[in-house]
């Protein structure tokens, strides 16, 4: 198994940061986040990180010389098909009240597809 560099490991660790940050801010904008949704988000976050790391390691073991960004792009194409909710906040937060969802949408119009 090829040893990943510190730079690559940091990249992998950071890959989920944007997602994590946005979700947390949306949580902050809401009065109440259903527990089931919180659990779901935590699971998705962990799955993403674990599976991206595995995918990255596999590509490097196979001799890929693509940049980290290119590997993330490839991974996300597959991930999006499996977890479309991960990318669509409106679907993700469908369990929330309409008011809370509106608050989230108002706060992050640029980040919603």
């Amino acid at each position, binding site marked *: 198994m090829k040893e990943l560099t510190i*730079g690559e*490991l940091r*990249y992998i660790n950071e890959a989920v*940061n*944007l*997602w994590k940050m946005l979700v947390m801010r949306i949580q902050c904008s809401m009065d109440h986040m259903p527990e089931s949704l919180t659990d779901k988000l935590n699971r998705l976050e962990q799955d993403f990180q674990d599976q991206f790391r595995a995918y990255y390691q596999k590509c490097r073991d196979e001799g890929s*010389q693509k940049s980290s*960004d290119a590997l993330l792009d490839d991974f996300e194409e597959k991930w999006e098909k499996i977890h479309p909710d991960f990318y669509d906040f409106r679907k993700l937060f469908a369990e929330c009240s309409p008011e809370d969802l509106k608050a989230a949408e108002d706060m992050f119009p640029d980040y919603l597809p």
Partner: protein
Amino acid sequence: MPGSSDELDQERARLQRYITAAQTTTSATQTDFAYQELNSRFVTLQQQSVATGLSLGGETAEQKQARFLEEHEIRKKAIEKEWHEKTASGAGDLEKRGVAKTKKTDKAFYSGFSLKDLEVLAKNSDRGGNSQEYNDVVTDLELYNSVDQNVDESLPIQQLKRVEESCRKYLESRHPFSTKGKIRKAIIAQISEQAQKTLNDFRTRIMSRADQSFAAFQQEQSPEKINAACREHFQLISRWLQGDLELSAEESRRLDNQMAAVLRVMKQDNPPVVPVDADQADTMSTRFFNALGWTDRKPELVSEAELDQTISQSTLDARHKRKMFHTIEEKTGTPGITMARQLLGDGRHFLSEGISGRGTYLATSARQDDRSASEHCWSYGRTANSVQFSLCLNDKAKVFSKLQLMGLKRDLEEKIPGIMSVLSGSEKTTRRLNINQESSMFIALAGYNTIFCPNDGGFGLNDYYVTCDRSVLTISDSISVRTAAWEKSMPKDPLQMTKQTISRMRT
């Protein structure tokens, strides 16, 4: 006081210029002034002549002095008579014409003097007061002369542009009625001309280097040639975008196309044409800033007391003069202390991912709690051995507001469309969200190195910053390290941290 015969020749030549000027001018003021100088210099030379036996072309200094004074008196009376006749006619425009003539004559009168002579004249003239605009030129010129021009052209070009600007303000703002004012105007005109010439020389030099580097890149697309071409073109384009250098439309288009070609190759994977260090993330931003040499720069490490001093003495805008925090979270395979050392200069700069561009993110609050974890250091540092720095921006920081980013991007797309077509989309917009991670490269082209996100980009949370040049950071050597004991008790117990003072972490 002239000593050798060479110096005496120079003095004679100087006197001849005064004499010629005095004989050709029709301005009583100038004639008077020129003869004052002649008088004082003749006395000196007379003494010299007595001491060395030299004489001034047939006449002794005393004889020449007497002759010129006599001629001067005659001329002076003639000019005064002419002036009275003209003004007695009562026509206002005659007076204006007289002034215009004087102005024209002033320029002709002083154009025969070298800059050094003019400075002596200004210093010796007691007709005229202080001028803030003139002092500004002198100050800017001194600053320019103090810059080491062998290191990098960015700073001297910037200073020279300031000299040019302060010259322009002087020449536009005053009509110098005093003798000193007129002499100063002549001085400023010469300085301005010299500044323009030097700026053109810089431009020619940088253009030539950019063309040569592009030719070398076309011959061989090695990492060294790619980086060199990127660096030379960046310098020129960035100076042009900041208004320091003039480029014709054809020149800017050519440079844009050339740099776009270089960047296109830099982006290539399989194999990566420009490799990055093992402790860096392999992204376009990293390759770009590696090429510019920015990632080799190191921050400043100081004591906690010196950090407070740096903040209080900073020349930055008041809003940016504050203590900030950066937290590094340790995870599997990425030791907190290793990453911390890297920030301080043990290795090239690591540019983190983020919604405001790639770089090092700086929070304006150190505290973290569970409810608003995203408000403070973005909830980083939840694991044991995570490291938190106290720091500030130093005077090298050039801060750009995130709220103006869209406007900047539009402006760049108009001016450097080739480069922007390569850079836009070069950083993956993670998870298909509309987040622009290329913004660090955009602001760098425009002459900045730090993005300011006020109130978290408008989301009502804390301000934060992201910098792509860690040399703008002044960091305290007293850092906070999260203990294992805390980790066991999280998240219920309050935050526990121990302070460790690390001196010379880089060594």
